[in-house]
C-alpha cells in the first residue's frame, strides 16, 4: 500500500504519464505557463490550505500517537497526556 502510493507520486512527478481521475478527466503531467496558473493560485489549491487547522491537528496527533514529522521541522514539544 505505502510503497505503491509513494511510487505512484514519484512516477507522476518524474514522467509524463497519463491517468484518469474519478470523473474521467485525463490527468497528464504537463508544463504550465505562468499565465495559466489561475487555479493553482487559489487558496484551496495550496499544499497547506489551512495553517491553523494543520497546526492544531499536528498537536493532537503528536500528543496521541508515537509518530511525528514529515510536514516540516521546528515547533515546540509538550508534556502531553
Amino acid at each position, binding site marked *: 500500500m505505502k510503497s505503491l502510493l509513494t511510487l505512484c507520486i514519484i512516477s507522476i512527478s518524474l514522467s509524463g504519464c497519463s491517468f484518469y481521475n474519478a470523473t474521467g478527466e485525463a490527468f497528464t503531467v504537463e508544463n504550465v505557463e505562468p499565465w495559466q496558473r489561475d487555479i493553482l493560485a487559489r487558496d484551496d489549491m495550496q*499544499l497547506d490550505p489551512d495553517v491553523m487547522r494543520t497546526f492544531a491537528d499536528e498537536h*493532537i496527533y503528536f500528543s*496521541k500517537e508515537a509518530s511525528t514529522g514529515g510536514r516540516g521541522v521546528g515547533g515546540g514539544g509538550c508534556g502531553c497526556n
Partner: protein
Amino acid sequence: MKNIKNKLSIASCTLLGGVSHQAQAVENSWDLDSSFLYYDEADGRVSVKKAMAFLTGDLSAEDTVNVNLVLDTMSGATPTGAVRSKTSGVSSFTGASGASSTIDGGASVDRVNFSDTRLGIALTWSHSLDRLSTISYGGSLSVEKDYQSYGLSINYNQDTDDRLTTYSAGFASTYDIIYRKTDGTPEPLSNVQDNSIFSDGERYSYDLLVGVSKVLNRKTIGQLNYTMSYSDGYHTDPYKVISQSILVQDTDTGAYSWSEFQRYYESRPESRFRHAIFTSMAHQYGESGETIHAAYRFYTDDWGISSNTIDLNHRTPLSDISYIEPHFRYYQQSAADFFLHSIVDDSPTPELPEFASADYRLDEGVGLTLGLEYGTRISEGRFRVRAEYINWQYEEAEYNETKAIVLQVSYQKLFD
C-alpha cells in the same frame, strides 16, 4: 563596452534607488487570524481548550514576520499505565502531568486527575533573498507547569526559474526540560513506593528536512518530503508507571482480573532516531471546482515503531463563497520494542527489563478520524467550522480505546 557602461549605470541606479528608498513605507498590513478548538475524550479523560492567534505582517517588500500564540487549558483523568486491578498492594500514587489530586477509586489507581495550562509562542521571520529564494528563521517556546520547550529553526526555499518546482531544506533544534509539577523526575524502573527522585530531565532534538514540491499540471501540485530527527536525553514520561501483576481467575464467576503486586516508574531509551517520508498533493477537478487534498506519510524509528498515515480531504463548493469538506484520516502504528501491558511476574523481586513502558501510545494500534468542515466568506474574511470524531484502538494496552471529538472555529482575514 558601451553596453557594459549602460549596465553599470543601471546597476548603480538600482543600488542607489534601493538605498534611498529603504526607509520608504511599505503598505504595512498586519493580519490577525484566530481560532478556537475544543478537544474532548470520552469517559472524562483528556479535555483541552485551545485558543490560537496567528499574526502576520510585512516588515518590507522582502521581509515577513509571523507570530503564533497558543494557549491550551487541559484537564481530565489520564491512564497512568497501571492495570485496573481488583486487588493491589499499591496504596498511593503521584499524579500525571500537572496533577492536582489522585483518584481514590478503590484498590487501584489506574487513572489520575490533572489540570495544566500551556502557553506556546512561535516567531518566524521570512526573508526573500531574491525573486526565487526565501530563507526563514524561527524561534519557539512552550511552557507548562511540568514541561518547557525551546526551539530554533532555519528553512530555505528555492524556486526554479519557471517557478514550477520548489526545493526546500530545513533544520531545527529543540531543547526540552521535563519534570513533575511537585518534584523532578522519578528514577526509571524504581518502585513507586521508594519515591526515588532524580533531577529534571533534559532532551536535545535535531530535525532535518529536505523536500520538493512541483506543479504537475494546471490543476495539480504535489510534494515530497523527507524528515529525519535525532533526539538525545530524557525521553521517559515522568508520570507513567508499569504494574507488576498477574491475571487471576475468580473462583466463583470464572472471570479473569489483574492482581497487582508492585508498581514501577516506566523507562524509555535515552535517544531516538526517527525518519519520515511525507507526500501530499492538491488536485482540482470538475465543473464546479472540487478539490482533493491527499497525503501519505511513512514513519519509522529505532524504538521499533513504524507507522502509515493516510489523510484525505474533499472540498465541494456550495456557492461562490462557501464549501463543505469531509475529512478522512487513517493511522496505523506498530508497538515500541519495549512496550509491555505489564510485567507479568509474581515474585517479590521480579527481573526487570532495561526499558519498559505501558503507555498506550506506544502500543500497536489504529486511529480513524472522520470530520466535516464548512467554510464561508464573511465580509473581508473566511469563517470555518469543523467537527471531527477520532477513534484509536490499541492491541494490548490496559486502556485500549480512546474516543475523542474535535470542534474548531476559525476566522481568517483575506487579502483580496
